[in-house]
């Protein structure tokens, strides 16, 4: 389904989505971009890249799996375990970038497949993704077109909005998307043939505006297979601080830890929780024997790149990188994934 929505009607449409929990990117008082709940406040799609991708809405940093408590009745001690499933209201993420939606598709693969992660899917099934095509790149480090994405990709999206000056061109890919249109039918018009032409031209133009490029991503992925023991990792990781920025703020990184948080030791009471974790922390691979198979920064940088550009491709035939450029923009020491992969490509040439 394809429609036209006047820009001035956009806030009205968002208002009409009152039976959903609506998230939209917004700038806070200090000028930081992030996804916030719309809460009836001002809404606009005139936005830059958010620091955190919308990953946190589908895959929160902390998720309670179960609650446990010991009770003592007389001399009998009983342990009660209660599963906790997230109760999620229907949710819409408006203004998701096509790359962020592609990342959601990757999370779907990881948390779906043979074993379905019920916690993830409780949220995911309730979530509709409304994308906003990047007719202007939201970040100077965008490189989606180099990793098989595009600034107008529909992958993972339910609706895609494209800016056509005073109106949005609205493409609906799924029934979930159509439901959002039906919520405020009167605001949407049928597109005229020239609008279709315009949107095509806007999409073609948007690809040319991407400023950064990683050449030959697929051949690089092939080459990585033979570079596990390369001295390159040592050199490239010299300036790494071993913080979690590149992975925590990555829309497709999804590693986690499961641990028990004890509220009270006696009587025992607590929760089992899943929290984000990252291959960049030294304790991520620490064995209980004290041995750490990834003992240094080089092996951890290598892991990040190989997971994204080798292992994931072997399993899903996709890069686990959507080219949003956050890891480049936010790295405190300027480690640049494009530059590192450039070196991989040119290595030994």
């Amino acid at each position, binding site marked *: 389904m394809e429609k036209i929505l006047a820009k001035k009607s956009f806030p009205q449409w968002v208002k009409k989505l009152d039976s959903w929990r609506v998230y939209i990117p917004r700038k806070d008082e*200090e*000028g*930081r971009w992030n996804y916030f709940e719309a809460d009836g406040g001002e809404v606009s799609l005139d936005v*830059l890249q958010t*620091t*955190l991708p919308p990953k946190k809405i589908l895959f929160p*940093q*902390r998720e309670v799996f179960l609650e446990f408590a010991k009770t003592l009745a007389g001399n009998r001690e009983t342990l009660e375990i209660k599963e906790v499933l997230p109760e999620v209201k229907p949710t819409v993420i408006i203004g998701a970038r096509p790359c962020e939606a592609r990342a959601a598709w990757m999370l779907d693969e990881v948390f779906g497949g043979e074993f379905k992660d019920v916690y993830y899917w409780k949220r995911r099934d309730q979530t509709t993704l409304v994308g906003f095509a990047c007719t202007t790149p939201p970040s*100077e*480090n965008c490189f989606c077109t180099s990793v098989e994405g595009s600034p107008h990709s529909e992958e993972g999206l339910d609706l895609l909005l494209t800016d056509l000056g005073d109106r949005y061109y609205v493409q609906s890919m799924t029934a979930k998307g159509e439901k959002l249109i039906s919520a405020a039918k009167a605001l949407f018009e049928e597109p005229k043939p020239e609008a279709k032409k315009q949107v095509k031209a806007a999409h073609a133009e948007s690809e040319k505006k991407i400023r950064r490029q990683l050449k030959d991503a697929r051949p690089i992925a092939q080459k990585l297979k033979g570079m596990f023991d390369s001295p390159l990792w040592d*050199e490239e990781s*010299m*300036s790494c*601080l*071993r*913080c*979690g*920025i590149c992975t*925590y*703020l990555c829309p497709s990184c999804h590693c986690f*830890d499961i*641990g028990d*948080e*004890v509220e009270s030791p006696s009587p025992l009471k607590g929760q089992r*929780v899943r*929290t*984000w*974790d*990252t291959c960049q*922390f*030294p*304790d991520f691979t*620490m064995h*209980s*024997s*004290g041995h750490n198979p990834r*003992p*240094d*920064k080089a092996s951890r940088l290598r892991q990040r790149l190989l997971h994204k550009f080798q292992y994931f491709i072997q399993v899903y035939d996709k890069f686990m990188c959507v080219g949003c450029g956050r890891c*480049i*923009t*936010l*790295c*405190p*020491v*300027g480690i*640049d994934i*494009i*530059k590192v992969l450039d070196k991989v490509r040119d290595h030994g040439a």
Partner: protein
Amino acid sequence: MAKIEDLKEEAKKLLREGKVKYIIGYGAGSNGWLAAPLFIKKPEDVDKLVWDPTCVHNLVRFLVDEKRRKARQKQPDKRPVGIMVKGCDSRAVVVLLQEKFIDRSDVYILGVSCEKMGVVDDAKLAKKLAGKKAKRVEVDAQDRFVVTTEDGKIEMAAEELLAERCLECKANFPVIYDLLSGEKTKRPLDKPFGSLEKIESLSAADRSSFWKEQLDRCIRCYACRSACPMCYCDECVVDSINLAVTADTTADEKAQRIHWIQRSAESSENLVYHLVRAIHLAGRCIDCGECERACPLDIPLRFLNKKLEKEAKELFGYEVGFDPALPALISCFRDEDPQDFIR
């Protein structure tokens, strides 16, 4: 700012003669205007060194890595490492020497003076440019910043763009060095703790809600800890199982280890993490501002450390990182130290 041609010549000589293992310095970054750490092993690469107001990083952090690397090697190369330091960074070297974390013979210090300038605050720059991308940041002959963007050049007065810490700088040239580039020009400092005035004027309740709001944003990526040259502990209280686990540690011992801080990025845990870090930096933080700069969520961590720096100054007359021969604040006692808290 100093010109570093003289320093480059010396650096080449040091590498050629094998007097240093390698040199940690600044090079051009690939991500816009900001310089990036550069590790130089060959004399011919010395020309890649840069020195300008975008050299914000405190490279002393990498001496911690070097020590760890050496500890893993069976026959470590014992030659010193060359390191470029600004005035503030040199104070971090002093603290590491005071604490005997490194030995003076481990480092060859290539000092650079900021003279009348300092380094750029990336947050201030981003605000000024409002979405535009800076390509270069330079200093003109009148000590004004010249920012080159895609739409041309913008001039700004130094104080508009200088990092807050530079406006409160106590050492605009290195306090310890083997080689110095630039002048030792002292500059006046009217309000050494001026940035604290606003937050100190708030009531306890307002401060509490300010910090709750700030720290609730924390995602515990530990960039602040990772960027800090003083956060060199092998075991950190926030890590789940990093605490000295050996082949002999029993399962029971591991299970019964107290988790002081949970991994969850919740208000209470974030608060404890940041307070633990702040307390451990009292009398050690030299205000290089790297924690705050590295934070992707812009948490104003510098306030915490600056406040403790002020306490150390007011209570003990102690100023961090000027004299390697002095004992560290926490490990010394003097008769004139205030004692009214002892009952």
